Each structure stands twice: as C-alpha cells, then as structure tokens.
C-alpha cells in the first residue's frame, strides 16, 4: 500500500491511479479510499482506510444487491468514521481479519468469495459490532431516496396527485 501521497493538490483521477486495489475497493492511503471506476471516493479521518474499505465490503455482504452500486453502501457506513465509533470499528474489523487469517486468507477484505466472507460474518453475527452495522444499514441503505428507483419504488406521490390517474389499478397480466 502506498502511504506518502499528499492529500491536497490531487485530482480524484490521480488519486485513483495511485491506488492499490483490494477487493474492488481502492485504498489510496493518506485517508483516501475510492472506487476503481471513480464512482465514489471518500476521505477518512478517525478510522483507517483498511477499516473503511472493510466496512463497505461488510455492508455489501450483509445486504447484497447486485444492482446497487458501492457508492450507496459507502453512504450507509461513512458515519462510522467518527471518534465515537472508531474503537468499536477497529475491534470489529480486527476480529474479522483474525477469523479470515484462521481460514487462510490475508484478511476479510481479501477473502475472495462472498460465501466465504459470509461464513466469517456468521461467526460474529451475535456481536454488538455486527448488530450495530446491520441495524444501521436497515435505514442507512434502504432509506436513501436515491436507492429507491433501483428497486422500482416510487416514494412520495401526493405532489403528483396520488395514483388515481396514474396507474393504481394498471396491472395487466392477471
């Protein structure tokens, strides 16, 4: 992992070019992580890049939706980059990495098959760490209005006059 990249005066593209890709998430060092496809980038201040990248992967492994991009999972977990959360996150990620190493992988993040990562999560699912992350995702992920259209959900309808003239009974396959 490269470590001496100055944060300032870097474009996102330069940042991404300098990054070391791990499990689909780029850890650039100096507090930045980003997606290889430049869909998102995030600066962390209280927790490490590795911890944040691991959190994003955990979020996706808990609630995997193949049609939902990583950027929505990032939004759901970025709040854990806080002084209040950092000890819990450090301990939770460290435990998962230990379990991964016991399973002969370098880390949780570098455990390549989802099924194998899920097997690691199963071992911690009663821990407060896991329950906090999972519980937070229920609103953190599914209450993002930007996510709703991916599932076809239309959200608010009052401002459009409801569905009385917009297909409340338009089912055509029965």
């Amino acid at each position: 992992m490269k470590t001496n990249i100055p944060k300032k005066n870097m474009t996102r593209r330069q940042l991404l070019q300098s990054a070391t890709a791990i499990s689909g998430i780029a850890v650039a060092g100096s507090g930045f992580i980003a997606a290889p496809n430049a869909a998102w980038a995030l600066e962390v201040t209280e927790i490490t890049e590795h911890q944040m990248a691991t959190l994003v992967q955990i979020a996706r492994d808990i609630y995997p939706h193949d049609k939902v991009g990583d950027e929505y999972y990032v939004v759901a977990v970025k709040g854990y980059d806080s002084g209040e959360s950092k000890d819990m996150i450090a301990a939770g990620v460290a435990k998962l990495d230990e379990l991964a190493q016991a399973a002969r992988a370098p880390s949780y993040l570098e455990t390549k098959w989802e099924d194998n990562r899920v097997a690691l999560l199963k071992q911690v699912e009663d821990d407060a760490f896991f329950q906090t992350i999972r519980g937070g995702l229920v609103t953190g992920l599914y209450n993002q209005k930007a996510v709703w259209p991916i599932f076809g959900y239309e959200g608010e309808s009052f401002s459009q006059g409801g569905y009385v003239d917009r297909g409340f009974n338009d089912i055509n396959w029965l």
Partner: protein
Amino acid sequence: MAEKFEMNDGSVVVVIGTGAGGGVLSNELAQKGVKVVALEAGGRYLPEDYVNDEWDSFGQLAWVDARTTSGDWRVAKDFSGLPAWIVKAVGGTTTHWAGASLRFQDHEWKALSAYGAVEGANLLDWPIDPREMDDYYTKAENKLGVTRTGDRAGLPGNNNYLVFEKGAKALGYKEVHTGRMAINSADYDDRLACQQTGFCFQGCKWGAKWSAAYTDIPRGEATGNLEVRENAHVARIVHDDSGTVTGVEYFDKEGNLHLQKARVVCVAGNSFESPRLLLNSASSMFPDGLANSSGMVGKNYMRHMTGSVYAVFDKPVRMWRGTTMAGIISDESRHDPSRGFVGGYEMETLSLGLPFMAAFLNPGAWGRGFTTALDAYENMAGMWLVGEDMPQESNRVTLNTDVKDQWGLPVANVHFDDHPNDIAMREHAYRQGQAVYEAVGATRTFPTPPYPSTHNLGTNRMSADPKNGVVNKWGRTHDIGNLYISDGSQFTTGAAENPTLTIVALAIRQADHIASEMSKGDL
C-alpha cells in the same frame, strides 16, 4: 397559552387522550353541552403537515417514549423498546390507522359462551348485548363515512387488491371485496374522495381517511365546550378521602406540573398508557393503583393474532400504489373449531414502502435469502392477517420502576406470550395467505412475523362481575364512580375485526351515558 377553562374548575370532564376513544368522546360530550378539557401528550399535526415518507412520518407521529418488553413474542427481540406502533399526536392513532371499519360478529361479544373455556385463556363474555350496539355501530359508520355501509359505495381496487382478489376467488373464497373503509369513495362530510396516493399509515394528506384530528376535534372545539391541551402528559389521577376522583396532574411541554380539577375523568391513552396511568396513580388508599381492586389493571393484554404474507410474482404489481388496506377476505373470520382453533381471522391487503419492507419483512435477517426478496419489491403483493387472540392474565402491562420516562415516571413493561390458539390460528392463516398468492402464480411467498402492535386491547377490561374486570358495561370503573375508561383497553375480548369502529361506537355510547348520568345528578 391561556387556558379556556380554569385549572380549578371542577365542573369539567377531563378526557386523557384524543384518539378514536378520547377524541370522539370529547366531541360527543361537547356537542351535548358538556364542558371538556382533553389532555393530549402529543402535538397537533394536520393533513398539510403529514409526509409521504415512512421514516420521516414515524419521526413526526409515533409514540417513541421509553417502554420495555418481555415474553416470547418476537417483537420483544426485534423491537424491544417499541412494543407498539401507535401515535402521539392530537387525534391519536386515527392519524395512522388504515381505516378498516368492521363490526364485531354477534358471537364475538360472547366469546366464553361461544367458544367454551379454553385452557390457559381468560375468556369472558362482554356485558353488552350485541343488539345494544346496532344503532351505535350505525352512528359510528356514518360519522366515519364507512364504505359499503349506508348508501356509500366501495373503493376501487388497486393492483395489490386485484392480485389478492384473483387468488381468493381461485381458492373459492366468497366474501371478497375492497373492504368497509373509513376512506371516502366519494366526497363525504366535507372530506375529499380517496386519491389513491398510498401512505395511509402516514396520515392522509387529502383528509379522505377519517381521523379525529381534523373531524371530531375541531368540531368539538367549535362548540366552545372543548379545550384540547396539547403536549400535556398526564402523570397521575388524584382523588379525595372518599375515593372520588378530583382531578389530574400533568406535565406541560416545559415540564411544569399542573393540576386540572375534574368532575369526571375519562382515560383513553391506549392499552399501555391507560393502565400505566392507573398504576402510577397508586396512593395510600389505593396502593395497587386506581380502580384495581380486581387486580386486573394491566392484565389480559391482547394485540390480535397478526402476521403478514408477502409474495413475489414474475411480473410487476406495484402494491404501494393506492389505498393501503382496501381489500378483505372474510371467509375465515367465522368460528369453526374444526380448523384447530377457536375464533377467526380476517385477511386484508397491506403494503409497505421499501424502507419499512426492509425493516419488517424479516427483522434481523440478512444475506441473499433476504435481499433477493427486496430485489423483487416491485413484483410483490401483500396481505395482513388479523384475528382474535386469547386473553391471558400473564400477558400484561406492569410498571418498570427501573426505567423512567422523560418526566421521571416509571415506564410500561409489556409482557406477551402467544397462546397455543394464537399460534394455531397464525399457522392456518399463513397457509391460506400463501395459497391465495400461489393460486395466482407466486414464485415465492413470505410468512412475515407480527409487527409492533397496532391493536392494543384488554388491559382494563369490561366485566359484569367486578371481581374479574376493571370497568362495567359503560366503561365506568367498578371501584370509582367518576372514573371511566374510554379506549380499547376496556375490550373484554378482541374479536377478529380491526378495533377502531368498535372503539368509536363505544365512545358514542359512553358519551350518551355520561351526559345522562350528569343530567340525573349521578355524576
């Protein structure tokens, strides 16, 4: 804010709570010229304030003051601090309710006689003849504008209903329609017709659904006889040396304690807060709490046998469009012990938005078994199952003195274990609900566990004999002549039907009784 009625005006009737029970009672009394002070723990929200957003609306309206839970019900594990999804606002849970307005079946007023004794259950007959209720049900239906009653037409069926109806008919069910709903199918009583917006649970922004918040409450206030005090959390009911209730103490928004004197006190805080208030009002004269000589205050908590069935199809349904609960199958609501349980259940259409579906489809679940269900959200249909559950003394609301609310008062602990009859009924209902959707080609079905309770009943129950209940046939406490219970906590048994219409009918009836007693000089 200046009060309309004086704090030391002991001639007023104080009503605690402004929902289906308290809101209706307050207006009915005010219309008869009785002076009423209604104390409401929440604030006032009207259609322009409601939001078409599940979590934002929950934050606006839900009662989220501390409560605790125990027992084997899954809610105690998944939502340990939220045993009920009810409302803290003027109009109470009538802002949130779905609008399903069903009369009890005759035999349900006499559950003990109809079903016989059930082991482990504490069944009792209501001390009310079903025929006494006919006119009150009609008055309630006219007040609420219930569809398919009087000359009111039914609502049109939405996509979710059309799937449900086709499956029901394929199974041979006969009593299938878009429900008797307190949601206008045409303009009625100065309220608009339903615009098929969805979000019935979040408060109807058109006012097409009846809610006390924008009907009974303002109409009562317009008489000059009703004063509603918002953000007034009642702490204690007080009494004199003769055991007569003399007033209530409440906290205002700033936490100042006031004493409002009263001629009569009517408690309508829903089935957790009403017994909690009686228990928190314990005194040297009534060490076990007010009106509790039977020991029944807080006991026999019922929440209806509930559950949901969601199903996924290979094509879109878009169940969230339109009225949330305008669809019913009533064929299973009969009492037919050959099914392996007493009492019956209704099947009613239901939808949740994506955010609540994620929270409630299978709380705590994760991984692809769960997420592939949500991936098919657009192709999903849903129904709610609601049936009669068994009263059990051990299902009860008690004070948890280890946990205090923001006013320093012990909170309610809600203990609930399913009765074997509840479990047998739920299993049957899941099977039938899944069959309804499989008959239309569902590729996957989900027997979804009960949500935090919306139908909270029985914790101050009505009985002929003062030894086994808290109130008499008028909702008047057996122990204290000028203390009444006016909400669903007075239910002797729960019946299969959504309770609001019955709560409203009982409130109209109780108003007649109280006014009559006052004019006779007996109150």
